[in-house]
C-alpha cells in the first residue's frame, strides 16, 4: 500500500490497524512518561528503563505478530510488552508491586512477562534473552509449529558472548527467530561508536551467514516492512534475520542518569525525528487520520494510563506468605 509518495507499506494492513498502531505508540510513550513521573516522585521503588523515543521499533516489529508468536525483551521492555498486547493496568500494577501485576508484584519493571500471550519476558541480564529466544525458536522447529520468535536487544548486548553464540545457533539450525537490535546509540553511557568497530550492528550478521538489515528505527513503516520480510523468511524455514533499528532514547539510561555522556544538541536533533509525530504526519497525509482524531487518541490514552494508575493503587499487595510461592513448579 502506497501511503504517501515516499512511503510504501509492503504488508497489507487495515486502516484500523494503522490507527491502532498510532494509539499503541502513545500508550508506550505515555506509560513510560507516567512511570518517569512516579519514579521522580519516589512513588515506585527499584529502578526502571524508559523507551520514550523508541516507540516505532516496538510497535512496528510487533505489528505483524500473531498471538502464537513469541518475543523476548530487555530491561527497557515496557514498550515491547505493550506492543505484544500487554495492558497498562496490569503493567502499572506490577510496577506498584501488586498482586494484580503481570508477575504478582514479584518481577517489577525489568521482568514483565506474559508467557500465555507469547511474551517470554523482559530480562535484567544484557543479552540474557537472546539464547532464550533461540530456544523458543528451536521448540517451534522441533514441534513443527508455525510461530516465530522476535528477540529484542540493545546495541550493548551485541558485545556479549551470548549474542554471538545464540545467533550462531539460530543460523546453523535455520531457526525461525528475528533478532531486533534497537541501537539507541548508547549502552548505558558507552557510545556504540566507541564500543564497536563495525559501522552497523547489522554487519555482524555476515559473520553468521544470515541477512543483516539496517532500518530507521524511528520510522514505523520501515520497521514494519523489514520485519515483514524477516518473518516471511523465518516462517518459510530459511532461518533468522538480524535487523538493526537505529533509534534514540530520549530519557537517560535509568532513573538516575545525568546524561553527561551526550550533548543537548544531539538530544534535540533526535527529538526532531520523533517517531510518533512522523507517523501521524504520514497517516494524515494518507488520509487515514486527522489532527482532531489524533488528539482524541492521545487524550484517550492519557485517561487509560490514569485508569491504570488507579487500578494499580487499588490493587492488593502480596502477603508475606507469597515470599516462598512459585520458587518451584
Amino acid at each position, binding site marked *: 500500500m502506497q501511503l504517501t509518495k515516499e512511503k510504501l507499506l509492503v504488508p497489507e494492513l487495515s486502516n484500523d490497524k494503522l490507527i491502532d498502531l498510532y494509539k499503541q505508540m502513545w500508550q508506550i510513550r505515555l506509560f513510560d512518561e507516567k512511570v518517569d513521573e512516579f519514579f521522580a516522585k519516589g512513588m515506585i521503588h527499584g529502578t526502571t528503563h524508559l523507551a520514550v523515543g523508541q516507540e516505532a521499533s516496538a510497535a512496528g516489529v510487533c505489528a505483524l505478530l500473531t498471538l502464537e508468536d513469541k518475543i523476548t525483551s530487555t530491561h527497557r521492555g515496557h514498550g515491547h510488552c505493550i506492543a505484544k498486547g500487554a495492558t497498562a493496568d496490569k503493567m502499572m500494577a506490577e510496577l506498584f508491586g501488586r498482586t494484580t501485576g503481570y*508477575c504478582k508484584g514479584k518481577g517489577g519493571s525489568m521482568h514483565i512477562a506474559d508467557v500465555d500471550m507469547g511474551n517470554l519476558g523482559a530480562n535484567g541480564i544484557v543479552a540474557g534473552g537472546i539464547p532464550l529466544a533461540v530456544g523458543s525458536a528451536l521448540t517451534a522447529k522441533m514441534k513443527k509449529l508455525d510461530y516465530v520468535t522476535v528477540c529484542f536487544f540493545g546495541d550493548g548486548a551485541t558485545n556479549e558472548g551470548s549474542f554471538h553464540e545464540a545467533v*550462531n545457533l539460530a543460523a546453523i539450525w535455520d531457526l525461525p527467530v528475528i533478532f531486533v537490535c534497537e541501537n539507541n546509540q548508547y549502552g548505558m553511557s558507552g557510545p556504540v561508536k566507541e564500543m564497536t568497530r563495525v559501522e552497523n550492528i547489522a554487519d555482524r550478521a555476515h559473520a553468521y551467514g544470515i541477512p543483516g538489515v539496517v532500518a530507521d528505527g524511528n520510522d514505523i513503516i520501515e520497521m514494519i516492512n523489514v520485519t515483514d520480510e524477516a518473518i516471511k523468511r523465518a516462517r518459510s524455514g530459511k532461518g533468522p534475520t538480524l535487523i538493526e533499528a537505529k533509534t534514540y532514547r530520549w530519557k537517560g539510561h535509568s532513573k538516575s542518569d545525568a546524561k553527561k555522556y551526550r550533548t543537548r544538541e544531539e538530544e534535540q536533533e533526535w527529538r526532531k525525528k520523533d517517531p510518533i509525530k512522523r507517523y501521524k504526519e504520514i497517516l494524515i497525509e494518507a488520509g487515514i487520520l486527522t489532527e482532531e482524531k489524533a488528539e482524541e487518541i492521545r487524550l484517550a490514552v492519557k485517561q487509560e494510563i490514569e485508569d491504570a494508575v488507579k487500578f494499580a493503587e487499588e490493587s492488593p499487595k502480596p502477603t508475606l506468605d507469597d515470599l516462598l510461592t512459585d520458587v518451584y513448579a
Partner: protein
Amino acid sequence: MMREITYLEAVREAMSIEMRKNDDVYILGEDIGVYGGAFGVTRGMIEEFGPERIRNTPISEAGIAGAAVGSALTGMRPILELQFSDFITIALDQMVNQAAKIRYMYGGKGKVPMVLRTPSGSGTGAAAQHSQSLEAWVAHIPGLKVVQPSTAYDAKGLLKAAMDDENPVIFYEHKLLYKTSSAVPEEEYSIPLGKADIKREGTDVTIVATAIMVHKSLEAAKELEKEGISVEVIDPRTIVPLDEETIVNSVKKTGKVIVVHEAVKRGGIGGEIASMIAESEAFDYLDAPIKRLGGASSPIPYNPELEKAHVPQVSDIIKAVKETLNRA
C-alpha cells in the same frame, strides 16, 4: 537375579526409555552425536533418535544452555549435556539468572522443565579445569534442584524423576562411577528427589556422603566394623531438595556425624548439611563436634599422588570416625 548394568548405561537407558515415550524430550550438547558424548553416555542414541533429538551443538555452553531454557519455557523437555561440570561456569548465567528465576520472576507463570547433566569429580588426571565438583554453587540457587547419584540403580531412578520434574534440575554424574555396576531393573522407575538412602545402617556414627564418597564411606565402614565400630552411611542422593529428616533422625540415633564430599571443603555442601544438623533437633543429641571432610583448598593438581591427596580417601574417613568417637 536382576541383571547388572553400569552407571553410564543406566543414565543412557533412563533417557532412551523416556525419549521413546515423550517426543518433547531431546538431548543437546557438544559431541553427543556419532561421537557419543565426551564419556560415551549418548553412544548409539543418534542412531535411534536421529540428529533432531540428539542435537549436536557448537561449543557454546552459554548459548546452548539458554536455548535449552528457552525451549523448556516454550514446551520442550530438554536434557542438556555439558562435557565436564567445570564448564557449567560458562552456562551459569542462563542457569542461575534465567532458568532458576523465571517462574518466580514471572509470578508463577511459565516453567522450565529441563535437566542439565554433567560429569563431575577428579581421579582422571584431567587436572584443574576438568575435575571439579561445583555442586554447592548451584545448590545455593533457589529455583534449581541438584542431584548426585552414587549408583547405577539410583542414577536411573533419579534421572527419571529429574526428567519428570517441572523445574530445572542439575544432574551430576561422577566420571569414576560411570563404569561401576549394580542391579538395575529393566523397566522404568522413579526415585523421588529429596529422599535420602541409608546405604548402610549403623549405630555409632553417621556418615553423610555424596557421589563417589558414598563408596569410600562404605569401604571405611567395612573396615571399621572389624574394630567393632558400627557406621551408618547416608547418601542424600539429592542435595536440593535435601532429605533433612533422614539425616536428623540418624544423628539423633548415633549422636555423631561426619559429612564427606569430594568438593572443596570450604564453602562446600558439607557446611550446609552440618549447619542444618546443628540447627535441628539433632543438636541436643550431638555427642561430638560435627566433622567435615572435603577437598583441599587448592585447584585439583595433575600429579596423581597430589590429585589423590586433594580429596578424602578411605583412610581419612576411618581416621575421622575414630577421632569423632575419641578412639583415635
